[in-house]
């Protein structure tokens, strides 16, 4: 069952090509390069080149095991890869059946190097084959649905007409399994060219109050008594008609195929069916003669009776004999080209019982004829007037673009479903799909197991969580920890802090396109992670050189200054908080650290630049702390004394590289019965959406990167 080969007969040309492919292996890493580095793997050194887009990759490298949703995303990535392609799985992971590995190896640099040799062998032999099967996975199945170009919430399974406006429904292909999450390179979701209605302005949010009148086209217009809408001239309708008061109506929201709510997406405030009929009824009342009917979008159509427009399917509306009786229409036909007179922008037929063109600015056009349609002019500037805009104030097209979970510029595992207006973010939806780890399935007496489980929580910070668990249990049992052991633990934690910040620097370098930083920080991180105490001392000068060099980089300040301030009065922790003037650091409350002369570093600035500088300073500070600690050893649980009471509660807090993490455990009769965890990334998660709102895409990604969020922690 070969899904990775290319269907071609093997000949000399193919042999040469296959050989070339075996020497030119490009890899896409799942879940991400940062996880690879956290496992001490140097991908580039093994002969694989890392690429950013699945289309350029020939090998899918899967490190460790994947949760179900991650496996689905991996399947999507594999499906997007170009044949010939292979899967390399590192670690004895149980991959789901649809994602079978071509080569497996253990998670170590040697394992990786031997695996690369095997991959070269595989490509030489199997790049072209005569028996190839299609890759199938549940998540890839699609179905066809039909949607109205004007009302994106109208979705049907069969072709037909929109019940609201009558237009022919347009075909669209979406994912069959709506629970799956879009992956980085999913391109089907919201094609900029699809003829959907997101070019129509999105209706603004509305405060619904009863007894008021609103315009069906402009919900922000609210009056106390009936009349005409100042923007388009339509008769206002009572708001009570709007059944459920739905505030925001986003034309584009329904394009999100992962959202199961698209059918609930109500047009409540704009119950077009009733409103349109109302306006049509007005038409009927005010029509004085002639039974001619025309299409609101195609004024050149003129029929004698009601029906559907042959071009687009919309319900035809009567033409007023006196004027152009175009009914209410999203596209606001403005007969008025003069922008200062937009209040004159009337949908004819509603306001003129009499034919009053005096106020309209038509130049020298002759209006006595009925066929006004040809001379009509749709001012698109008016149509896009009310579109919500990004920071650059341009009314651009809205696109849904999913970023993640394997997007190169974001922490791996983070899914940001962004809606972009042009290239400014207007809506954010965050998802994490990373791990299946459960903190405490059932009461257990296996303390070591609990500690190990917690250490596996975040592959980027195993030492911190290990230490957290040990301290909590020791706190609960009131155990004594010797100074030696404590100092060694400090050494380990600080080493991890340096490695974590270097990892962050490497990811930051990749996101901002700073190649030198990306390479050097990654290399240094690998060296530090594997170094013992003596090794760290030797690397100290290299670390200092890197920090100094980064601080002197031209344009770095311009790139990050004033980008991404945190909103006011929102709790933050870690470097994000300390860059905002706070002094809060969990290490400040621990006598062991204070003995080594620790004092928290803080600065003001509250932007990506100050966070960057703070992390650089913390690297230097951690180096000093390691030197004072004089030892490095992985935190191990000490022997716990017999419990004094039946129920014991313990808590601990550890300053991880990202912020403070807290753990509460409850021991009953020598078994852990309850555990609750607060992680810094979970605290920062609600910050993402408000912080990147209205930012340009590059700035938005830099902001998210500067928060140093780890999706692995976000489940708690």
């Amino acid at each position: 069952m070969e899904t990775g080969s290319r269907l071609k007969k093997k000949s000399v040309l193919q042999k040469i090509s296959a050989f070339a492919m075996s020497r030119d292996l490009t890899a896409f890493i799942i879940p991400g390069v940062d996880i690879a580095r956290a496992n001490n793997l140097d991908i580039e050194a093994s002969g694989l080149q890392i690429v950013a887009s699945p289309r350029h990759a020939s090998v899918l490298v899967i490190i460790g095991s994947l949760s179900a949703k991650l496996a689905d995303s991996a399947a999507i990535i594999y499906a997007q890869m170009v044949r010939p392609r292979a899967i390399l799985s590192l670690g004895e992971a149980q991959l789901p059946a649809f994602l079978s590995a071509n080569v497996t190896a253990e998670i170590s640099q040697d394992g990786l190097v031997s695996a690369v040799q095997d991959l070269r062998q595989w490509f030489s032999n199997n790049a072209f084959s005569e028996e190839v099967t299609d890759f199938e996975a549940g998540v890839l199945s699609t179905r066809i649905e039909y949607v109205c170009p004007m009302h994106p919430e109208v979705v049907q399974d069969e072709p037909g007409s929109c019940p609201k406006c009558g237009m022919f429904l347009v075909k669209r292909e979406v994912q069959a399994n709506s629970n799956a999450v879009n992956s980085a390179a999913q391109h089907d979701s919201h094609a900029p060219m699809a003829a959907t209605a997101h070019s129509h302005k999105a209706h603004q949010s509305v405060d619904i109050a009863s007894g008021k009148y609103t315009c069906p086209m402009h919900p922000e217009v609210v009056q106390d008594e009936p009349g005409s809408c100042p923007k388009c001239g339509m008769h206002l309708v009572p708001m009570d008609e709007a059944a459920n008061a739905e505030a925001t109506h986003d034309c584009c929201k329904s394009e999100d195929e992962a959202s199961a709510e698209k059918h609930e997406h109500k047009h409540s405030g704009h119950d077009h069916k009733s409103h349109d009929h109302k306006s049509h009824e007005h038409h009927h009342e005010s029509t004085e003669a002639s039974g001619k009917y025309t299409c609101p979008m195609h004024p050149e159509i003129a029929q004698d009776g009601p029906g559907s427009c042959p071009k687009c399917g919309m319900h035809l509306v009567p033409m007023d004999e006196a004027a152009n009786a175009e009914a209410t229409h999203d596209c606001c036909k403005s007969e008025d080209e003069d922008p200062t007179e937009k209040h004159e922008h009337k949908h004819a037929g509603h306001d003129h019982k009499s034919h009053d063109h005096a106020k309209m600015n038509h130049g020298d056009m002759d209006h006595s004829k009925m066929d006004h349609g040809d001379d009509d002019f749709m001012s698109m500037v008016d149509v896009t007037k009310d579109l919500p805009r990004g920071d650059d104030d341009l009314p651009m097209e809205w696109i849904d673009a999913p970023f993640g979970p394997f997007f190169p510029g974001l922490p791996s595992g983070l899914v940001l479903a962004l809606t972009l207006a042009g290239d400014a973010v207007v809506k954010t939806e965050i998802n994490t799909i990373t791990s299946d780890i459960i903190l405490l399935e059932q009461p257990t007496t296996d303390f070591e197991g609990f500690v190990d489980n917690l250490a596996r929580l975040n592959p980027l910070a195993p030492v911190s969580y290990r230490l957290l668990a040990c301290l909590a249990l020791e706190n609960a049992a009131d155990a004594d920890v010797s100074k030696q052991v404590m100092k060694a633990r400090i050494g380990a934690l600080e080493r991890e802090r340096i490695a974590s910040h270097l990892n962050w620097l490497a990811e930051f370098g990749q996101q901002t396109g700073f190649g030198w930083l990306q390479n050097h920080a990654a290399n240094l991180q690998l060296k530090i992670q594997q170094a013992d105490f003596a090794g760290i001392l030797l690397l100290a000068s290299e670390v200092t050189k890197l920090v100094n060099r980064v601080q002197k980089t031209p344009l770095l300040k311009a790139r990050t200054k004033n980008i991404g301030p945190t909103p006011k009065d929102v709790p933050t922790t870690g470097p994000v908080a300390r860059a905002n003037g706070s002094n809060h650091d969990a290490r400040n409350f621990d006598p062991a650290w204070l003995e080594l002369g620790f004092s928290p570093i803080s600065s003001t600035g509250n932007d990506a630049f100050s966070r960057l500088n703070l992390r650089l300073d913390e690297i230097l500070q951690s180096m000093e702390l390691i030197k004072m600690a004089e030892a490095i050893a992985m935190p191990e649980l000490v022997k716990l004394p017999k419990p004094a009471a039946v129920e014991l509660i313990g808590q601990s807090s550890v300053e991880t590289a990202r912020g403070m993490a807290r753990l509460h455990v409850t021991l009953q009769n020598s078994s852990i019965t309850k555990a609750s965890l607060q992680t810094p990334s979970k605290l920062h998660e609600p910050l993402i959406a408000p912080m990147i709102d209205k930012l340009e895409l590059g700035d938005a990604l830099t902001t998210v990167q500067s928060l140093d969020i780890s999706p692995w922690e976000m489940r708690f």
Partner: protein
Amino acid sequence: MTTLIVVILLIFGSYLVAVLENWVNNGKFRLTAPLFAAMAMLGRESILSHKPDRLFFEVAPALLLISALLAAATIPLTPNLIIADLATGALFINAALVYVLVALLMAGWGPNGAYAMIGGWRFLGQLMAYAMLVVMPITAVVMRAESLFTTEIVVSQAELWNIVYQPLGFVLFFIASLALCFLPPFDLPTAEGELAGGVEAEYSGVRLAVFRFGRLTLIITLSAAIVVFYLGGWQGPLLPPWAWTAIKILTVTAAMLITGQLMPRVREAHLLSWGWKLGIPLALLNILIVGILVLVFPT
């Protein structure tokens, strides 16, 4: 005949640029890597995305390559090796290079994907910033040479290279060249960290090979243009003209590639702001200075 020789030299030059780029980005000097990469790319599938604008998708890489080749056609490698010594050579280079923008717009719009589209339109914004910074320094160079012939521009630098005569113009043209061939720190359309490859992301197989080849040819064409306009072309003591051209072009290319590694990507807002508020006044100042020099010290 000259056409054939120049095209072969361009291909060889692209190969050298690929080797250089690999070395600058990854620290590895591998002479066979570009060859294997090219052969591998030709053997891979060429995939179409969902509902692409087929015409644009196919034409874009070819247009990129063609525009680079057209620009290279008016650049003299030695006094006799020039495909077309047009009387408006210096202007023609710019005219051909503008189609890089059209190619990237097509490549952005064609695949019907968000990343590519954003990359494409970003390049339009980038062009707004660098377009004047390409033309105005060329104007100053032409003022000194009193001719638009590229060969005469080289000859006019016989006594003093333009890099010394008009250093401001050189700096501006160098920066604008980096922006034109979307090398870091101006790689907004193909940003790895922001757009997962952007304009390039949807291409695979043969089309990707043509796109990448077009990009490499563009880089080397621009290096050649810098050498011709500011570094005296083929002139130099001791070595034959072709050797000097080769050395100078490779040095300039290396400088362009190394510059990108050393700083983060420029924000689009800053690029436009600095380009217009700082770059254009400086370019005008350059023209003024060169004008005065040309009048005060006639050759």
